[in-house]
């Protein structure tokens, strides 16, 4: 056998293992989710009742789906101006300068901080601060979690957009300059449009990250199993209810938690799919 063939076989089997693991996960999630979907049907997704009391058990995932989507969207909106400005600064205005290198490293560092540390910071620093300035009453809820989530996802959007922005061909930009464009016009009419699919991919990535974030959110959202009725209301997310409750769960409740895991998997898949579709359209 020649080395080419061996390489091919090795690569094929390694990729196959990944496919096998992902498939196995879906399989076991679906298997575990069957009892709760059998009991509640599609009502599991639309019901906002989460009652684990013995004898009148009833589970619905709507509060958690709502909590997850609301916190993640809010985080995306809050993080957008910050990460967009930073990526322009790094990739366009101060490209290849010392300042950009230091700042870029700091942004990457943000991505490396464990989420429990963000949670602690949110709990002991940000929350009391929000109460002190009179912005919040108790400090637990959707707003505080979204704020911390926003900071957590900044590096994902920033790094990718920055990379793409600095890859926009100089020829394009020089052509625009030679036509008399100002720097602002070049950015708005050349750089950003040329890099938009990459920038967009960065935000999809960070949104996906926000969807699955667990620890920091658990510490700040208040873990009340209700649909948040305002930005300052408490709530709960899909990842956080699983982390909180699987320990003592059995029977139908365990199945309900696994179903939420499956739904989270599906939602993440849909978000990625939509993202890919939009990127394709843009190109």
């Amino acid at each position, binding site marked *: 056998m020649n080395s080419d063939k061996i390489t091919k076989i090795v690569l094929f089997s390694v990729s196959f293992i990944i496919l096998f693991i992902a498939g196995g996960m879906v399989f076991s999630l679906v298997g575990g989710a069957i009892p709760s979907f059998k009991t509640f049907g599609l009502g599991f997704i639309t019901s906002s*009742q*989460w*009652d*684990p*009391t*013995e*004898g*009148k058990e009833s589970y619905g995932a709507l509060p958690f789906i709502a909590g997850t989507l609301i916190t993640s969207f809010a985080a995306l909106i809050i993080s957008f101006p910050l990460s967009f400005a930073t990526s322009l600064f790094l990739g366009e205005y101060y490209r290849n300068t010392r300042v950009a290198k230091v700042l870029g490293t700091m942004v990457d560092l943000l991505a490396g901080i464990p989420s429990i540390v963000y949670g602690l910071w949110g*709990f*002991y620093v940000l*929350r*009391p601060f929000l109460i002190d300035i009179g912005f919040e*009453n*108790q*400090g*637990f809820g959707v707003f505080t979690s979204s704020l911390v989530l926003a900071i957590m996802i900044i590096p994902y959007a920033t790094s990718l957009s920055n990379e793409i922005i600095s890859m926009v061909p100089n020829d394009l930009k020089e052509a625009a300059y030679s036509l008399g464009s100002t720097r602002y016009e070049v950015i708005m009419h050349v750089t950003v449009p040329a890099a938009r699919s990459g920038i967009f991919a960065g935000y999809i990535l960070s949104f996906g990250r926000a969807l699955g974030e667990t620890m920091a959110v*658990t*510490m700040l959202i*208040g*873990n*009340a*199993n209700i649909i948040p009725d305002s930005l300052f209301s*408490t709530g*709960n997310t899909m990842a956080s209810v699983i*982390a*909180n*409750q699987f*320990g*003592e*769960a*059995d029977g139908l*409740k365990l199945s309900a938690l696994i179903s939420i895991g499956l739904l989270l998997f599906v939602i993440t898949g849909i978000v990625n799919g939509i993202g890919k579709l939009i990127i394709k359209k843009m190109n």
Partner: protein
Amino acid sequence: MRAIISVLVLAVLFTACQNSAKKTEKSSGEKVSLTAAGATFPLPFYNLVFKNYTESKGTLVTYGGIGSGGGIRSLTDKVVDFGATDAYLEDKQLAEMPAPVVHIPTCLGAVVIAYNLPGVDELKLSDELLEKIFLGEITKWNDPQIAANNAGLKLPAKDILFVHRSDGSGTTHIFSDYMTKISTKWAEKVGTGKSLNWPVGMGAKGNPGVVGTISQTEGAIGYVGSEFAFSQKIQMAKVQNSKGEYVLPTIASVSAAAKGSIPDDTRIMLTNSSDPESYPISGFTWIILYKEQSYNGRSLAQAEETVKLLDWLVSTEAQAEAANVNYAPLTEDAAAKAKAILRSITYDGKAILN
């Protein structure tokens, strides 16, 4: 094909040999190690006494704090020598176990009502106040109903924030069992369980999460396991017991909850005890094991060591350690009943202890 079969046969033979080798080693009584898992509530107590036991008797005891539910599951699956739980098995659960199971009470704990109101000490809570605060009917600390029960206390005009557990817990079970006993409204709307459909408030993970949230938030109130609350600097409310007395949770008042009559199988929730000195939100924690110890090829030595350890655990020597880690020791009556149950445990039909 023949090659595969012969490999399989060899493998089976090999494991069989190994098994029998293990068995002889065990029955010769050389070294037996015990494995157990279950409730996290008594974990500090078990860690301390099992370590002492290993040091003095040489038997290694490993206890995994995986939660009461996990303890029951592990015993059902027969992967541990004994399990531990904060809620006794109901008749239905007992019937579902693969073999008869007995309960051994090991110590008492309580659920403390902790709060954060600077300058407001010795808050007194009646049944009615507990019901209304935890159902969300009273929302301000300066509510006249709280003031009427607490003459002389300066109550602020702050919102009440109820902090409950976000994870399933035996602590929640004891708390809700008490609430169900004192309030029909609670019984109807919420009920008893390890996790509940909470009418108000926010959740925090574990006792440390609840205490952390309360101590960080002025106006917060919540329930915390005594084993954790006693080791923290936190305000605790006096709770009215069934004799109308307001009692602060202490080792003595928790122990007093077990002074009433206890059934022979010790399966009783001690909440709302009739003893006038008792703190009303108290309860046993149990170790559960099979009544017939000869199962899954367990050796006699393994069974003997299991029962001996538990017999020592309810002895005065081990019980004296309880208070050091903030648990209340068993009353004499409870310890005597536990010993009687241990003497009913058999190996191949013969009593192990006598």
